[in-house]
């Protein structure tokens, strides 16, 4: 398996990562997701202030061939979007866990998503994907 999985992050089954710091959730796509999409050429970002529930499409990522959604990993409000991705969508391929974070959300009070995976569980999920 050649995809990077970072420690200390939580993951979704739809290949988003989320860094939880207090009530702030920073969200991006995983190394696996960018490698499957390849050549990301366009990103559509949500408006700051948008309220979303976990599982809702928040952003749209487009590669040369495919259109793909980024889903909210938590309930909450969008407080910041990474506008650098509008000019340089290729950052998502180059640095998915770093410079190419996509949105920051303020997590709804008391909300916790029980379906988020830790890095080990996500690594197991990727191994299963490879077998298929």
């Amino acid at each position, binding site marked *: 398996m050649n995809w990077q999985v970072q420690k200390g992050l939580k993951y979704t089954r739809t290949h988003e990562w989320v860094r939880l710091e207090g009530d702030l959730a920073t969200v991006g796509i995983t190394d696996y997701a960018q490698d499957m999409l390849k050549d990301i*050429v*366009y990103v559509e970002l949500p408006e700051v202030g948008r309220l979303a529930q976990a599982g809702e499409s928040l952003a749209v990522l487009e590669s040369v*061939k495919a259109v793909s959604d980024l889903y909210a990993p938590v309930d909450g409000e969008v407080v910041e979007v990474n506008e650098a991705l509008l000019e340089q969508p290729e950052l998502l391929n180059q640095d998915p866990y770093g410079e190419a974070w996509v949105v920051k959300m303020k997590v709804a009070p008391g909300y916790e998503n029980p379906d988020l995976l830790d890095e080990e569980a996500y690594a197991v999920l990727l191994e299963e994907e490879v077998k298929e």
Partner: protein
Amino acid sequence: MAELKKTPLFERHRALKAALAEYGGWIMPIQYEGIIAEVRQTRQKAALFDVSHMGEFLVEGAGAAAFLQEVLTNDISALYDGRIIYSPLCYPHGGTVDDILVYRCGAERYLVVVNAANTAKDYEWLSERAKPGMSLRDISAETALLALQGPNSLAVLQALGRAPLEQLRYYHFLPEVELAGIKCLVSRTGYTGEDGFEIFCPAGKAEALWGALLEAGELRHLGLVPAGLGARDVLRLEAGLPLYGHELSESISPLEAGLERFISFKKGPFIGREALLQQMEAGLSRRLCGLILLERGVIREGYPVSDGEKEIGVVSSGTYSPTLNRSIGMAFLATGEAVPGRAVQVVIRDRAHRAQVVTLPFYRRESK
């Protein structure tokens, strides 16, 4: 679903870690390093595509020429040995069965190259109309087809053989060329808008030929890379070339797709002639044209096109173009709207995006 077919190069694609996907009943390489890199390499150096999924038929016999004149919209009477012609194949109602290439190997022997997804349909369509004194043979399974495309293509082939390929003109072929000791049919054709060649060889020799071509490219520093169907689709779109199932189909006539120069009304009767003539006289209700997106986003097949108030057409193919660094597409627009320069809107996820109608192609290589 029936099991997907594999080309003779399937194991090569796996070894190269290509992203594979289904296309027209085949499991095919979509990309290797990435579509953008493969498109750039084709435009600047050279790329090698496995297009063995394409179908090949041999039409032979005294009745072969008359048969082809009847099923094709284009006129083959001016063909000579070694010359190739492009032609739609129409239904009586004017819709399109397929768009194909016809290679004249002899006055009574023609090689026909058809779209992969249409191979079975075309074979049935043609065999039902076959004449006495001719034979139709599907040689797809025993034939591999490689497309070598890009400005360095000629140099790659010259490293592998001594055939006079430099003199081979566009839409011409040599029936017997030895490349790395393998007997091939080589034509100066392609689907990318670049100079290039398509090379037919026996399926059993495909792996050896593929390897020899890539090795020659590397030894001579010609920048040859394998490229997949993803890059091929972008390249053909940039070159404004139609793809069956998008710009042509049973419900789209070649006139609507802007292919009138491949329809000969003068040659005599052919299937679809009356319907096409009627379309010409009545005037077409829609026409294929090019679109460029004037803001960020990517045009995709199926997106509606509007004039700001009402829908005036629909996108048939769209992509991000690495060569133009913007999104491009082809769309069928109501005839009065299909005017180059016109400002239109492409509706992407319910939001109107500014676009402009342009003449095809989007990209034309500089002639030497």
